[in-house]
């Protein structure tokens, strides 16, 4: 685990450093700007899907989905980050506690 932690940390740090070293004119490339704006949206959306439905390499529907729905509703009502996460965990935990969902 340590090598992953250290290599990923070094890599993300170098990404930050890179921006101070490269010439500012890189910013004028429309395609560069567009890509870096779109990438987080794709990756985060994919992470939502995978972390909700994946169990290893199989698709399962369990109490995590309830947590995600609760999170969605909380976000619509502009709840802050911590509350969104706590509500999701709480609803999933309670559904399991009462044996409603796996």
């Amino acid at each position, binding site marked *: 685990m340590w090598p992953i*932690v250290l290599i990923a940390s070094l890599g993300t740090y170098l990404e*930050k450093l890179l921006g*101070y070293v490269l010439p500012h004119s890189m910013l004028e490339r429309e395609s560069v700007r567009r890509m870096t704006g779109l990438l987080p*949206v794709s990756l*985060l*959306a994919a992470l939502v*899907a995978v972390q909700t439905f994946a169990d290893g390499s199989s698709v399962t529907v369990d109490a995590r989905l309830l*947590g995600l729905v609760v999170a969605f509703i909380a976000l619509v009502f502009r709840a802050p980050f911590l509350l969104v996460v706590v509500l999701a965990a709480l609803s999933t935990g309670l559904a399991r506690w009462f044996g409603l969902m796996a």
Partner: protein
Amino acid sequence: MDSQSDNDSHSKMDPSHVHLPQPHLPHAHVPGEHLPHTSRDIHINALGIGLATGAYGLSFGAISIASGLSIAQTQSLSLFMFTGASQFALVGVIGAGGGAFVAIATALLLGARNSLYALSLSPRLDLRRRAIPAAALLTIDESTGMTMRYSANVQDRRRAFFATGLSVYVLWNIGTALGAIGASALSDPGMLGLDAAIPAGFLALLWPRLTSNSRTENQKMWTLAIVSALVAFLLIPVLRPGLPVLCSALVAVGASLIWGRNSASEHLNRRGQ
């Protein structure tokens, strides 16, 4: 040192003229740039943003422990990686059984936007060489956003950048420590629904990118998000854990090509009329 800046024309430094993927502040209140501001305002806002971010450092600490990292590894990520979305992604992929390569690649792809932030901050902060390694570490959504808002002169920009960066750094790390220690005291994190906190956390990180732009831009982002999620979902049974998320990056590449061509042709049409 300050060759470039104090009297920069306002329009050049006006954030609305900066076509960047805008940093998304997590529910922090930052005054509009039309308000007069003092260094005290900047410090108060920096502290507010730090407190808000520290609160979600708590959830990062807890989720990281639930994903199987130790307290020391969790803290190292907050100390050295210090970019929230990449940290969540790394522990999420590890927790889901994705390999080392996939975990690192996902974190790096998510961190690529920091290069862009640094690129646009570099002339605005106009830093000494020695200050750059520290500034690089503090280059994140929140510090970039605050620098863009306090754009009047180079002193304000530096103050906004370092005050916000340091405040978030300290409080994010305190939050991480408390969350990690708290979660490792639990016997079964799954029972508390911590596994459901992970997708909820990603959704909360995604949310401002879907809702804080113009209407047409938001619609584009929703489309991109739904297609990406669907692609990853369909690939779950086909690929090794972690890879479906990496493949969704190709959806962003595709969208970039399609929308890039459209905006170019729109531009030509407008010129033709």
